[in-house]
């Protein structure tokens, strides 16, 4: 009996130790961001580090002036449009690919590794390759053409892996049953398959959206004349760093959090319905 309690005390101690470590870890990964949030409300005469000299929304107001950080609204709009298009294409392509991969077909291995290559190739390499190529052919790069192209190359492996996981756990006997009862392929897909895999499609799309919205390296040389938001942020960093940048960072992070929240709500609803 005594030994049993000692073992339990020890287990409890280990668990407490790990919990404390987890909290420290969370502070480590969120700490810098929280410091940035605080400093975005830095007083008018304060600098980019602590202490806070008063509290003001001065830097947030500066953020809204068009002159302070390039063409911010335009960059944001472009990033959002790009992310939405990437989201749709990623969801569509991932679903189609995963459907095809349910059966073995000629070249499936090669295709699988090519999709994964998009994950492995550093963004700067892809940027360089395509930018040089387009320059040589004489097509000017633009965020909606070459930018879109490389963004999908980056997001597709994530969406594809999500959809592969979905189909791995998929019960095809439901489709069989529908077919045996005389349903055509399209009906089977619309009535049986699609509702069941919809949460997965949403997840694949969301991967596409957030990865594209934050993507920097792949667009560096390929966005052409107009910047996306990450490029704009990067450009503003080459100037003197001011708390405006922190306000921008905070705004961007809050926006990302809202997206995550929205996604979790949509996903939960769809997942419950598909059960």
């Amino acid at each position, binding site marked *: 009996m005594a030994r049993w309690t000692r073992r339990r005390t020890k287990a409890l101690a280990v668990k407490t130790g790990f919990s404390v470590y*987890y909290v420290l870890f969370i502070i480590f990964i969120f700490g810098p961001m929280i410091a940035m949030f605080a400093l975005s409300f830095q007083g008018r005469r304060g600098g980019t580090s602590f202490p806070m000299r008063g509290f003001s929304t001065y830097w947030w107001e500066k953020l809204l002036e068009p002159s302070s950080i390039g063409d911010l609204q335009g960059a944001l709009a472009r990033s959002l449009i790009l992310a939405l298009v990437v989201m749709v294409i990623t969801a569509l392509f991932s679903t189609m690919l995963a459907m095809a991969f349910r059966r073995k077909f000629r070249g499936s291995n090669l295709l699988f590794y090519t999709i994964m290559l998009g994950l492995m190739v550093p963004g700067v390499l892809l940027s360089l390759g395509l930018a040089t190529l387009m320059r040589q052919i004489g097509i000017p790069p633009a965020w909606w053409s070459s930018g879109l192209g490389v963004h999908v190359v980056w997001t597709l492996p994530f969406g594809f892996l999500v959809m592969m996981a979905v189909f791995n756990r998929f019960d095809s006997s439901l489709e069989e049953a529908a077919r045996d009862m005389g349903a055509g392929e399209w009906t089977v897909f619309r009535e049986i398959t699609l509702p069941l895999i919809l949460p997965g499609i949403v997840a694949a799309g969301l991967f596409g959206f957030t990865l594209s*919205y934050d993507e920097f390296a792949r667009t560096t040389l390929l966005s052409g004349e107009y910047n996306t938001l990450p490029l704009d942020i990067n450009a503003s960093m080459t100037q003197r760093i001011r708390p405006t940048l922190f306000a921008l*960072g905070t705004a961007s992070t809050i926006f990302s959090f809202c997206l995550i929240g929205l996604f979790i709500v949509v996903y939960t609803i769809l997942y419950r319905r598909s059960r």
Partner: protein
Amino acid sequence: MLQTAPPHAKRHHSGLIGDQPAPPAQDIARLKKSKRDQAIHPGWLVAPASLWLIVFLVVPLIGIVVFSFWTPIRGGMTPDFTLINFGNFFRQEGFFDPEHRNFLKLGIFVTTLWTTFRFTITVMAVCLIIGYPIAFFLAMQVKNFKWQLALFLVAMVPFWTSYLIRAVAWLPMLGRRGLFNKMLMNLGVIDKPSSFFLYSEFGYTMALAQLYVVLCIGPIFFSLAKIDKDILEAARDMGASSYQVFREIILPLSLPGVAIGMIFLFVMLMGEFATAVVVYGGKTSTTGTVILNYYATANYPFAAVNAIMLMLAMMIGVFFILRVVDIRKEL
């Protein structure tokens, strides 16, 4: 394409059945099978994505290889075969210093690639040391599934926010008047602000570790969560100590996850260049920054050579990780 594939499928059906008289009863099973096989030909499903990948992934990569053999001219390049770019990579001493040659010393570009590699390995080690216990805690210590998922998602949140912004967020922490210096001074460890943090190897490594650690926690967590808890219980019942259970069972079974996480980190960190500029002040170059600099000066062939060398180094690295753990066998 999803919309267009089924009509195509239907066309197949009618062709298959319509050309024949009513099918004999015993053939219905066979027919149903072939109907399913031909329903949506995988070719139609994979064609758009394959085409996309060829245009935006395969062709640019081939382009890099081809361009690395072209001759650089002022403001561009011409398609004359040359090996001079590769020669320069190994030989050149300074950034814009083609005259200075020194065969005994490693060229600046080889050194840069080596520095990139060294940072990558260091950050990978730091991430593994920080990340493994977190994955272990989530998978082994947290018993309630809902808590497990919630705590995992909280740790994953930074992955969904802007990577550049997270790099920027390190600035107030690391500077001479940054939080680290303040804390250490208040604790009495140092008496005047140290420039040890910002634009230093330490600060750079910490920032990179914070940016990328979530990427290795995910795969390790999944491989740990897959371990059958009954095996661990059985080992304990037979008298194995906690350490033995970890050493003999948990660690080997988690290796595939570790390898996948390390490959993720390796390829991301080798191509890293933005953090080097933000947190390291561009004081050192990574091969990524070298590539961009040469692109900016319109020496495309030399940028391509650096890109190829980076790719080779990455392949060698991934190869070694795969030698340690055979992922395909483990999956």
